[in-house]
C-alpha cells in the first residue's frame, strides 16, 4: 500500500502487502496458499469460488510483513469476479503447473490480464513472481522444464521464479519470501528515486520488532 511506500507507517507495525495469486484453474493456487498459511494439503480440494482470502505473516530480515493473500479462480467464467481484486496489489504470483504445458503457455495471458486490471502505471516495474507448482511429479509427467521457465521469465523481464510443490511442501515458504524480497528490492529502488519527507520527529531509530498488542495477533511459524 502506498502508505507503506512513503514510509509513514512506523516500523513496529507490520507492513501490509496485498498478494494476488493468478494462474489457470487446477495448477494448485489454492493448495499453495493453504500450504503456506496453514501448512495443510488437501488432495481433493474444491474449486475456488471467485476469490479466497487469507492473512499470513512472514519475517524477513527481522521485519514482519503481513501478506494479504487473494487466491483467485482461474476459470474464464470467474473473470469478472476476480479482476476487481487486482487493483492495489503489491505482488502478483503467476502460477502454472509443471505437468501442464498449457498452463505455462497461459502465463502471458495472466500477466496481461493483471496489468490491464490492476491499473498499474505503464513502464512501472511490478513485482511479478513466476511459480511452477507440482514439482513433485515424475519426470515422465513433467511438461515444462526449469530452463523453459527461466527463459520465459528472461523474455518478460521477470527476475523471480521458483518451482514449488504444495503437495510435499517444498519451496512454498521460499516462494512467498522471494516475492516479498522482490517487492522490497523494487521498493527500495523507488524510495531512492523519490526522497521521502518526514515531518515528525524521528524517535524510531531504536527499533522494536514486536507489534503492539492491538495489532493482528498471528502466530508465527
Amino acid at each position, binding site marked *: 500500500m502506498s*502508505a507503506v511506500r512513503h514510509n509513514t507507517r512506523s516500523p513496529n507495525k507490520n507492513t501490509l502487502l496485498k498478494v494476488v495469486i493468478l494462474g489457470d484453474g487446477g495448477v494448485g493456487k489454492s493448495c499453495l496458499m493453504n500450504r503456506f498459511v496453514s501448512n495443510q494439503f488437501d488432495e481433493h480440494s474444491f474449486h475456488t469460488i471467485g476469490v479466497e482470502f487469507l492473512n499470513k505473516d512472514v519475517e524477513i530480515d527481522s521485519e514482519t510483513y503481513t501478506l494479504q493473500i487473494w487466491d483467485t479462480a482461474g476459470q474464464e467464467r470467474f473473470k*469478472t469476479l476476480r479482476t476487481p481484486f487486482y487493483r492495489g496489489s503489491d505482488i502478483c504470483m503467476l502460477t502454472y503447473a509443471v505437468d501442464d504445458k498449457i498452463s505455462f503457455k497461459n502465463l502471458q495471458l495472466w500477466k496481461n490480464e493483471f496489468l490491464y486490471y490492476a491499473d498499474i502505471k505503464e513502464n512501472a516495474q511490478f513485482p511479478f513472481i513466476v511459480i511452477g507448482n507440482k514439482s513433485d511429479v515424475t519426470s515422465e509427467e513433467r511438461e515444462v522444464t526449469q530452463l523453459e521457465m527461466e527463459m520465459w521469465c528472461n523474455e518478460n523481464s521477470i527476475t523471480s521464479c521458483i518451482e514449488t510443490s504444495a503437495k510435499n511442501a517444498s519451496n512454498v515458504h521460499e516462494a512467498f519470501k522471494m516475492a516479498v524480497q522482490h517487492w522490497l528490492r523494487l521498493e527500495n529502488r523507488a524510495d531512492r528515486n523519490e526522497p521521502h519527507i518526514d515531518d515528525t520527529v524521528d524517535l524510531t531509530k*531504536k527499533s522494536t520488532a514486536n507489534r503492539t498488542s492491538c495489532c493482528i495477533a498471528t502466530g508465527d511459524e
Partner: protein
Amino acid sequence: MIRPCVSECNLTNGHVTPIQAVLRRKKSLSKLNFRGIKKEELQRRTSMYLASMTIDELYCEILFEILHNVGCDISYEVGQTALFSYAQDAFKIPNDKHRYLLELAEKKEAPDRMINVEVIEAKDLRPKDSNGMSDPFVTLYLSSNMSHRYNTSVKTMTLNPVWEEHFALPITENTADENLCLEVWDFDPAESVKEKLGKIFDVKGVKGMRKLVKEIAVTATTGQHENELIGRAKIPLSTIPASGMTMWYSLDKKNKINRQGVLKVRVTFSSEKNNQVAEQEYRHLLRIVLLHELETSKVAANWWCGTFTPQGEQLLTQHIAQSGLTPAEVALCQYYVYSSIHQSHALNLTLFSNLLEKLVKPLQVGGVSDEDTKLFWDATKKLLPSCFSIIRKIRRKSVTEKAMVKQVVEVLKILNHIHSLEPPRSNIDLFPDTMYPWVTYQDDRTVPTVLNDAVAQGANDWLNHILENNNKPEESNVGKLQNMIQIIQLVRSDLQKAIEFYDKFFQEIVNFQFAKALYVFYQARICILCEPDVIEICKNLRSLQYSSYNDLTKQEGSPDPLAEGTSLFELYLALQRFATLGIGLCPADYDTFHIKNFHQWFHGGVAQWLDIAVYKALQRIEKAVELDQLVHVDSNVKYSSSAVDTLTIFYQVKVFWEQLNWPDVESCYTFIAKIIDDICRCCVFYADKMSARVEGMGDTQDDKKFEVTAEWCLAINNIDYVRETLEPFTRDLGMDGVIHKIGEMKSPVEAQRCQHTLDNVIANAIDTVRNKIIELLETVVNKMAPAMKRLLIEGAELGDQDSNSCDRLMMYVDNNLGTLHRELNEENFSRTLEVVWEMLNGTLGEIIQSNIEKRRPPAFFANLRKTLKLMTGSFKNPQNCDNDCDELRRTEQILRLNGLETAELIHEVHLELAKEFEKVKDSQLGEISIKTKFEENTLTIEVMNARNLLPMDSNGTCDAFVRIHLLPEAKFTNIEKPKTKTHNRTQFPLFDETFVLKLTPEQRELEDALILFSVKDKDLLGYNNQYIGEAYLPFKDIEDTSQSIGVMPQIHLQLARPTDKSMCLDSIKALEYRQGDKQAKEFLRKLKQRMGT
C-alpha cells in the same frame, strides 16, 4: 329487451312460413296470387324490385307514410308540414318535384295496414262453471267491423289461461274512432268441448287436428252454444303509439261493478309490405336521414350515438310502424347503415355495441333470414377495421384517457358480441388482407387473434414511433444508454397505463390479458434493443483511472468511464424495474421470457460499478472531511460531522448493493468480499484525510511546542466511530443469506470456506483501520514527545531544585493529557496511553543511553526517574500502567539501577544473582548442606558438608573450603568473613563447623541482606584459590528461633557460578558503564573470577 325472438318476429301467428314472410307487399306482389307461385320466382321478383328502387320512389313512399301516420304519438311533437319539409331537405328534393311526388302519394290508395294483436294471457277470471272453473277463450274484433270476429282457442278448466296467440286485423283509413274490442267467454257448447276433444284421438295427422280446433272455435262463435261472457275490454286505436305497446286490461261486464279479471295483450301496427322491401326502404331512409342530420348538425366524429331530431325520429318510426318491421329487423338495418356511414363519418361506438346486444340473440337462434345474416356480416366487416384501429391507436394523444377508455370498452363489447356469433368462415372473409395489411396471422384470423395482433401492432407502431423520435445519431455510449433508459421508461409508463386503465376491461369483456400481451411484446423488443449494445459496452468498459485511493486529486483520464458506468447502472435499474413488472404481470410465463436473464448482459459491468461506487464514496468522503467544522455533532457524542457523513456514504454503497440485487450467489459472494475490502479502503482513506485535515493544528510557532487540540481528538474519535460500524455494515450486506445459498447450491464445506474468507476480509479491514488510528495517535504523541523529552532531561539535570521551565513542561504534559482524556473516548484514550508508554520508553531509552555515554553520575538518573514518576503520575490513567507496559517497566528498572550508588548497585547484582541461582537444579558444581538460625541478633551458621563437588585437581578430587560473606559488604565491615578448614582430596568434604556471628540490631533488620557461601579449591601455594561455586541464602529465609542449631533442618544449596547470561543483567551492565569507578571495576574483576574463567 332480450325476449324469445319467435314471439318478437312473427306478427301474424305462430305458423308463419318463409313465403308468407316474403309476400307482404300488396301493391307489387299481391297476396291474391301467391298461391301457385314458386318461392324462387317470388325471390326473383323481390330482387328485381329492390334493384330498381329509386330515390324518388322511396321519397314518394315516405310522403305517403307521412300522410298516413299512425299511432297515438303522431303530430303531438311534429306537424305534418314540418315532416314534409324535413323529408324534402333530407332527400334534397327540389320543390316542384316534391309537389309532384306528393300528389302521387296522395293519389295512392290508403295503405293496407294491419293491427297485430297478441292475446297473451288472462288472470283472475270469474268462474262460470259449477266446478268453480271456466273454459275461457277470447273473441276479438274492430268496432267498425263487428261481424269479422277472431277467436282464440279454448283453455279448459282454468281461471288463468295462457294463449299467446297472434292475430292480424286489417284496419281502414279512419282509425280515429276505431276501437279494438276483446271479449273473454266461458265456453259451454251443446256438444261439450270434452266430447269434441274426445275426438282428438280419432283425428289423423296435423291437418285434421287443425280442422278440429277450428271446429271447436266455430262452435264457440256461431252461437250454437250457451257461451257466457266473462268480461270485455275496449282499446281505442288512438291510444296505441306507433311503436306499439303491451298492456294489462281489466275486463268489464254490463251491470257488473266487480272486475271480471284482467287480460294481457300486445298491440302493434304493421303493414302487409314485403319485408325485404320494407327493410331496404328503411335502410335507405335511415341513411338519408342520418346523413342529413350529420350534415346539418355538424356533429363531431365519434359523437353521434343514435339520437335524431324529432322530425327524423318520426319519419323513421312511422316507416317502421307502417312497414311492420320487427325490432330485430330494425336493429339489423340500423347496424348495417351505421356501419357503412361509420366508415366515412365515425359514429359513437356505443351505438354498435347496443345494437349488437339486440342482435346477438336473434342471430344465434337462427331467427334471421340468410339475406339479413349476410347483411349483418357485411356490416360487421365494415365496422371491425375501425374497432381494431382504435385498439391499435390506443395511445393516441388527441383523445383524453377517459374518452379513450370509453371507446375501448365499446370496442371490446362489440368484439365480444361478434366473437360470440362465431363469424362464418366459408362465405365471408371478415379479415381480408387489403383491410388488414398489418395482421401477421395468415391462417387463423379470428376476432381474438386479430385483436392480439392489433394490440401487438399498436405497441409496435408506437414503439417504432418513439424509437424514431429518440433516434439521435448518438455516437457516445452514454448517449446510447440514456436513450435506452428513456425508451424503457416510456414503455414502462405505457404498461402502467395499460394496467391502470385498460387491462381490467380487456379481461372482463373479452377475457384478453392486455397488459400481459403488451409485456410479452415489449420484453422481446427491449431485449433486442438493449442486449447487444449492453454486452458490447460492458465488454469495452475502460477501468477507472485514478492512481491510488489515497490521492483522488491526482485522478487521471477522462471522466467518461464514470458517466458510462453510471448510465449503465441506470439502465440496469430500469431493466430491473421492467423485469419486476413482468414477474407481477406474468408470473407463470416469466421464466420463458428472454428478459429474465437481463442480468447476464451486465455481468462485465458489475466490477466497474463497484469501482465507481468506491470512487464516488471516496470523493464524497473527501468533501465531507473538507466541510467538517470539527465540532461535536451534539453534546452527547464525541465525533463530528464527517464521521456521520462517512457512514451515510457507506450506507449509499449498501443501497447500491441492494439495488443491484444480483441474483447469482457465487458472484454475490465475491462482490461482497470486494465491497468489504473497498469499504476498508474508504476507512483508511477517511483516516488519512482526517489526519491531514487536523495536521498543523496545535503546532505553535514560537517555542515549537505542539498542543493537543480538540480537533485532533475529534479526528481520532471520528475514525474510530467509522471503524466501529465496519462490522455491522458488512453484516448488513446480506452475506449470511448468500453463504447459506452457497451451502445449498454447492456444499457446506465450500460455504464454510466462503464464510471464512469473508470473515478474514472483515477482520483484516478492521485491523487495518485500527492500525490507522494508532498511526494517528502516534503522530499526536510523537508531536508531544520533544516536550516530554525536554521535561525529563531538565528534571534530571536540575534534581530537586525548583524550576520554572520544569513546571511549565509539567503543565504542558498535564494539559495535553487532560485534553486527550476529556476529548477522546475511553478506548482511544487507553490506546493513547499505550502509545505514550511506548514513546516514553523509546525516549527514556535514548536519554539513558546518551547520558550513560556521557558518564552522568547516578544522581542524574535518580532525578530522571523521579521526574518520570512525577510525569506518569499525572497521566489520567484509568488502569494500572504496570499491567500494560512491560517495556516501560524494564526501562524504568534500568533507570533505577543507574540511579543507584555503586555499593547499592553491587548489592543489586548479588540480589539478582541470588534470584538466578535459586533456579539451579542438579548442579554440576555440587552442593553444600548447612543449618542456620537467628536468635535475637545472633546468627548461627553450621556448615555441615559438601557433595559432588566438581573436581578441580588433576587427580580428580578437590581440596575444598567454604568462606562465608555477609552482604551488602559495606554494612558488615565489622564482621570478619568466617572460613572453614580445608578438606583435602575429597569431593565430599565433611566440614561440620559452626560459626556464631554477633550482629547489630540494624544489621539484623536489613531488608535484603544475604549470606554468600563461596566454595573454593585451595591452591597448594595458597595464592590462587580456584573457585568451585557459590550459593546465596537471604536473611529472610532464616528462621528466628531459640532452638538449638542441632535440631534445625538441613538446607541443601546448589552451587552455582555467574555465567555469561548473568553478565547481561541490567545491574551488571549499569556497573560496567561506571568505568571510572574503582569499586565497580574491582567488583566486576572479581565477578569474572567467580565465573571461573
